[in-house]
């Protein structure tokens, strides 16, 4: 028998949602300060309105739903999935007020794209967007990459047992430190250290490239946030092509790869355990998949002679590959070039890389390396079972921080999530085809949205039908949360309708 949710459930969900909204509101202080510093009056007002609406809603929920009770698993999951939807609406308010988005739906699309670290955009006249709004676009990637709930856990929530339930609901099933709040704070510490180093590297490179110092460091900070959080927004409409710099491309590749690594691996590297990077199943799988997918792309590009030399083929092919594989979405070619200069084989290589993604407990989306590694190990185990004598005891293990024995429940879990992603990629492709796009293009854009990548072959634009925009928003949301909390909210809605 399905039980109908009680009023108590709604109150608990509302109360914790209110806390997270207040946390989100607090982050809008950063663009307000930027606006005041850069003397951008109207953009500052956009964020004052945004923060007022957020604080109003947050306080209202805290007062109306006040409770002393802790979250259970179901409530924790629902709080997480709703937090991301509410964050999208609230984050879109200052964007829409700027006048650079044609409709509120477009602003919501970009806000979800930012929070989910996707990078697909519908912004208009990006090259004339204010510093204030540009910083917000990149900041929401930084916040979303770490996780909206992680922010609340790190700074606004004083340890409660329901914290772990929300942490897991945000697709982070690995604790780096015994306490989940300490884990969240470690994730932030890593991110801040890299933010300083990355901004310095990009800022100095920018100055050498002929940019003015203030602008160069602003771009450096924005590009770092988008690269490390594998988001893919950029302050200019040309993405990384704007900078015309090989060094800039190399630095962003390094940052993208760092962002695609497991935070747990970062912790062990920081603790001096450098061998872990070579032994870990995720990094070894990532290395293999990069070689395989790049080979596919290189053969495809060589077939049609897209680039005049091996060096240019490598530079263009490898950059788009790393950008796609890590789920970032930076481009050093124009979106339409995917269709006119790349053949189907090269596109298939990028689609495959996008679908696979980076490490678990990182800022990337998609199926992820640990699951791919586990599935590969399971195949290996089954092959051994066929080859070896019946009485032979076959044990498969892998190294992920420690030696782990392969168990059936791990394989099952990896296969279910992989299947869910494949279905999600497929549904988006079907919707794209329904709106008249060819299969390969529709699959490319759908995979990019659902795997939170952001590479585009040109389908994503303001003229795109509202139905397709909404489909991609749902894909970005479900893909970022890795389904569990999305399934819970669907179950909750069914229980609310059919329950007794």
């Amino acid at each position, binding site marked *: 028998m399905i039980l109908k949710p009680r009023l108590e459930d709604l109150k608990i969900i509302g109360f914790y949602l209110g806390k997270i909204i207040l946390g989100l509101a607090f982050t809008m202080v950063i663009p307000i300060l930027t606006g005041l510093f850069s003397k*951008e*009056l*109207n*953009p500052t*007002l*956009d964020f*004052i*309105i945004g923060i*007022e*609406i957020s*604080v*109003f809603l947050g*306080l*209202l929920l805290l*007062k109306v739903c006040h409770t002393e009770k802790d979250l259970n698993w179901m409530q924790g999951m629902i709080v997480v999935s709703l937090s991301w939807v509410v964050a999208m609406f609230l984050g879109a308010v200052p964007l829409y*007020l700027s006048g650079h988005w044609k409709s509120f739906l477009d602003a919501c699309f970009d806000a979800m794209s930012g929070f989910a670290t996707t990078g697909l955009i519908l912004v208009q006249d990006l*090259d*004339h*967007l*204010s*510093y204030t709004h540009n910083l917000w676009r990149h900041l929401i990637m930084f916040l979303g990459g770490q996780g909206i709930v992680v922010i609340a856990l790190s700074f606004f929530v004083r340890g409660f047992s329901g914290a772990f339930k929300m942490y897991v609901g945000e697709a982070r099933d690995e604790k780096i430190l015994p306490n989940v709040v300490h884990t969240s704070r470690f994730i932030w510490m890593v991110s801040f250290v890299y933010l300083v180093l990355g901004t310095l590297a990009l800022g100095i490179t920018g100055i050498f*490239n*002929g*940019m*003015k110092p203030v*602008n160069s460091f602003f771009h450096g900070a924005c590009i770092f946030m988008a690269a490390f959080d594998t988001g893919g927004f950029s302050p*200019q*409409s*040309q993405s990384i*092509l*704007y*900078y*015309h710099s*090989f060094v800039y491309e190399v630095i962003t590749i390094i940052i993208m790869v760092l962002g695609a690594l497991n935070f747990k691996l970062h912790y062990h590297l920081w603790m001096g355990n450098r061998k872990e990077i070579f032994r870990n199943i995720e990094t070894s799988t990532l290395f293999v998949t990069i070689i395989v997918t790049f080979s596919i792309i290189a053969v495809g590009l060589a077939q049609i002679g*897209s*680039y*005049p*030399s091996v*060096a*240019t*083929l490598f*530079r*263009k092919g490898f950059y788009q590959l790393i950008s796609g594989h890590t789920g970032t979405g930076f481009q*050093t*070619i*124009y979106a*339409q*070039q995917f269709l*006119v*200069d790349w053949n189907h084989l090269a596109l298939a290589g990028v689609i495959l890389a996008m679908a696979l993604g980076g490490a678990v407990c990182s800022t990337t989306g998609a199926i992820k390396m640990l699951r791919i590694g586990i599935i590969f190990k399971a195949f290996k185990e089954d092959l051994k079972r066929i080859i070896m004598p019946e009485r032979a005891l076959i044990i498969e293990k892998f190294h992920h921080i420690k030696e782990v024995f392969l168990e059936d429940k791990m394989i099952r879990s990896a296969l279910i999530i992989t299947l869910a992603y494949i279905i999600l990629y497929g549904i988006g492709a079907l919707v794209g085809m329904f709106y008249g796009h060819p299969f390969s293009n529709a699959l490319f854009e759908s995979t990019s949205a659902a795997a939170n990548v952001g590479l585009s072959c040109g389908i994503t634009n303001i003229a795109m039908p509202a139905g397709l925009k909404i489909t991609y928003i749902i894909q970005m949301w479900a893909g970022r949360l890795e389904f569990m909390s999305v399934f819970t909210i669907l179950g909750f809605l069914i229980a609310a309708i059919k329950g007794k």
Partner: protein
Amino acid sequence: MKINYKLTLIILFLTLAAYPKAPVFPQVISSSELIKNAKEYDGKLITYSGEVIGEVMLRGDFAWVNINDGDNALGIWMSAPLAKEIKFTGNYKTRGDKLEIVGIFNRACLEHGGDLDIHAQRLRKLGEGREINQRLNPDKKNLSLILFGALFLIWILTLFKRR
């Protein structure tokens, strides 16, 4: 009168030689058209126009300038003296100079790592950029004040509830 054909021919030849090469595509081509049919225009002298955006990035004797025609921004590689003619570049507070560029279009430039770009030979300023006057939007100002009032009300209500 006797016409000196030899002299006329020499003058005509020198005039043609001194005059810059005329573009194969003298009419302005949009960025979308250039990207879509890049193979057709590859290596040809073309005309492109749009607003200078971002910054002029000097690289030794040359400079990178990005020009947006409304659809996309394309990278233009030009000599530093040519780039010095640019006074305004487009951003939030400024409209950039509007330029017409005549140059060689490269689908995948060998010199610049396979970038799609234009190597400018000459430019013509179609319009001077300007600073954009910022005025406080009264609707936004009023809305923020109303919301501030609502927040204040909630705060007062919270105080009453506590008592």
